[in-house]
């Protein structure tokens, strides 16, 4: 399919509208605004206080895809930030210095509250300390302990619930002037669970051959609503229903996953990917896969805003605060390495993938530190080859297209060779 023929599906149109409306709401000046992070975001809780949810990682991604992040990072580095540290943070700080303009062209209002969901990423803590310096607004820390032994403990859960009761909720009540109503929270959580069911169906649809969806590049879009300001809304339920119907249709037609330029004609490789994508060259990066017919059938990045498939978690309206705690404890980057290894290895087997590709991100130690060991362990468990590439989130200086392409090509050819390995002994002679 040529580029011009690519039409937006109903779900894509809907998502675009939803995102646009949310930015209008944030920048409209009529509601209170909270800044908070994607992993462990408490969207349902914020909704109980009519607080809009602004996510700085998403802003950094938006700026990167519009090729603006490089200049923002440079601005932050000029103001004293080290070249060594996370570029999400620097893109965010650089954006503030450059007028803090939202993607809809209007300036972001100063947040009324910083909800520091300290979940699965050390840098979050420093990031919001830095934002607090700027906005001097109420800042509330929700410390989510690391599930270091695989399973969250009762002590961890109790600690989070207590923080919600005694720190987070009182601060949000004060900021918003709205009294907390636990039944309202239950209602939102009920809606979350409905959307989450369809989300998991979508994630698992890639078990089909060919896979109707790409669960990394495409997955980024499909995750949008559930990871951001829409979990717990009717809109999210509708979005995932639309998406499901579209995917069902694709399966019926036997279509392969999509690329930036339309449907991929043939599925040659099925991959599981660990690590976030690069955003500054997102489409070029995607094309390196789609042009080779490589489809990502599962990825860990589609679990950063919550893990719903691995152990069947759904938000539970009967235990509203406890379920929020479990949600936070369970996000991908809050899981220990053995669990991540198990998750990815199971993906490779269950989705019948050719192997694991690690996109190691310079900015993100939470993801990256240990990925080389993970790769080796997963290779051992599955017997499938792994490959390792290195890029960054939003720093254009760390995306070397030639380098990445070289490794990807080698990897794809290696998979080809391994597939033919049965007959290779004869061919090789010696």
């Amino acid at each position: 399919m040529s580029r011009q023929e690519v039409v937006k599906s109903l779900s894509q149109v809907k998502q675009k509208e939803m995102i646009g409306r949310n930015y209008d709401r944030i920048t409209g000046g009529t509601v209170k605004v909270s800044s908070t992070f994607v992993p462990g975001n408490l969207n349902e809780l914020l909704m109980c206080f009519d607080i809009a949810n602004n996510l700085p990682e998403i802003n950094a991604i938006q700026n990167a895809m519009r090729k603006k992040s490089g200049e923002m990072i440079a601005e932050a580095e000029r103001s004293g930030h080290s070249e060594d540290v996370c570029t999400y943070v620097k893109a965010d700080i650089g954006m503030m210095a450059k007028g803090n303009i939202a993607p809809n062209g209007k300036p972001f209002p100063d947040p009324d509250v910083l909800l520091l969901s300290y979940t699965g990423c050390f840098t979050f803590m420093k990031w919001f300390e830095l934002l607090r310096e700027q906005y001097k607004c109420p800042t509330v820390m929700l410390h989510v302990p690391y599930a270091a032994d695989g399973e969250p403990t009762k002590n961890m859960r109790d600690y989070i619930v207590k923080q919600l009761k005694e720190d987070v909720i009182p601060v949000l009540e004060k900021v918003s002037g709205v009294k907390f109503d636990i039944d309202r929270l239950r209602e939102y959580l009920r809606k979350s669970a409905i959307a989450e069911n369809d989300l998991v169906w979508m994630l698992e649809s890639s078990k089909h051959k060919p896979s109707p969806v790409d669960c990394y590049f495409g997955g980024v879009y499909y995750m949008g609503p559930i990871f951001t300001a829409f979990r717990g809304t009717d809109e999210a339920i509708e979005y995932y229903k639309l998406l499901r119907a579209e995917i069902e249709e694709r399966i019926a037609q036997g279509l392969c996953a999509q690329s930036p330029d339309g449907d991929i004609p043939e599925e040659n490789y099925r991959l599981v990917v660990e690590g976030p994508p690069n955003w500054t060259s997102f489409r070029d990066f995607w094309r390196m896969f789609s042009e080779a017919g490589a489809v990502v059938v599962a990825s860990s990045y589609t679990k950063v805003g919550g893990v719903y498939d691995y152990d069947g978690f759904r938000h539970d309206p009967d235990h509203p605060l406890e379920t929020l705690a479990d949600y936070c404890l369970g996000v991908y980057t809050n899981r220990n390495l053995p669990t991540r290894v198990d998750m990815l290895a199971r993906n490779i087997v269950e989705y019948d993938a050719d192997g694991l590709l690690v996109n190691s991100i310079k900015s993100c130690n939470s993801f990256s530190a240990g990925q080389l060991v993970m790769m080796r362990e997963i290779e051992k468990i599955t017997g499938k080859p792994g490959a390792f590439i290195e890029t960054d989130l939003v720093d254009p200086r760390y995306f070397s297209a030639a380098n990445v392409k070289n490794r990807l090509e080698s990897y794809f050819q290696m998979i080809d060779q391994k597939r033919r390995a049965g007959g290779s002994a004869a061919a090789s002679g010696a």
Partner: protein
Amino acid sequence: MRTFIGIDLGSTTTKSVLIDENLAVLGSGITNSRSNYDVAARVSKQEAKIAARFTLFRNALGKDAEHLLADLERNFRLEQFLSALRQLEETCMGYLDHPRFQGTKASLRRALESVFRKIEVEAQVIYAPGAARKSDFFRDIAGSRFMNLAEAASREADIPFETMLNIYDKSIIDVESLVDPDETVASQMRSGLARSLASAEGVGVDRAEALSALGKVLAVELEETYVVGTGYGRVRLPFPKEQIRSEILCHGLGAHRMFPGTRTVLDIGGQDTKGIQIDGNGIVTSFQMNDRCAAGCGRYLGYIADEMQIGLHELGPIAMKATRVPRINSTCTVFAGAELRDRLALGEKREDILAGLHRAIMLRAISIISRSGGVTNEFTFTGGVAKNEAAVRELHKLLKENYGDMTVNISPDSIYTGALGGANFALRAVVH
């Protein structure tokens, strides 16, 4: 006959290897990559074919022909040189028609003529039996002779040296882009053989037999049944996609062909360092490359050589003279220069510092190997750095320290590893 060719387009040199249907290597060729991969590919391919004809000739004559062959090769190179020199001269003369040389055309012509006549005479010496040549590339030999002779010639003719240089610079690019057609090569080989047979008494081969054998060899058509491109420049090759292979796979397979027992391959080239694990069939099972910094690859040694104002090939021999190996931590090319100057200023010996730098590079390389899965069996070292004795010494030490005693293979033809793998892929593409 059907032949299968692999071409490895590196950042500095381009290599070709030609094999027959029975996997036998018939010939290999190398040329400088210039800035034109297309030309480099054609030149190296022609060189591989030339070498293949030599091989066929050797096969036809048998063992007794070694002496003749060596002599023939030398004479052929001389013919090739003279032929290129004539082309260069013609091209230079062609430039004289440019209006801006109107006033000086005659004196320029005389000056150029005198230079080329002198080079022609010198060529006999350059290609005399037993003479050592620094490089076999026409550009290097002709260029250095031209520089030497043109200065005096321009002075005599009272024309600016610069002008002669300009004409040369323009012309050499044109000449370098020319690839001799097969007929020209054939006639060069014939002339070469004539020279050998004329001058060399007792070559131990019957003249008639030699002439007839060469005739048969030249009559063989070397059909390019399948060509595979690899290396950094592969994406710029005018090849269809399916004829391109990753250099990692080609290196793995090439190393396997050279040393069937090898399971681990380390390649340190100009642009990157690769650690490759292969199975018993030469199939890559895992690989790692250096990350975005150039630390630990050949380019780093280039920086060091520039910094010390010595030739790249001198680094190893100097480092071998070290009496102690200091610990150098920065393999960062950006900091290496500063660290180097600092250490020299502090009175450390040049050879010791260089030994430390070689160790630092090999440390990085062993880390990449470790990352790719360690060393399990026979180890093969390839790439330009494999020619550096100090690097090889450190490699041996580090392998012993970390993995114990093992076989380490370094082929004198290691530079052709990738192209050899490519040629084998070319064969596989047709045989399957």
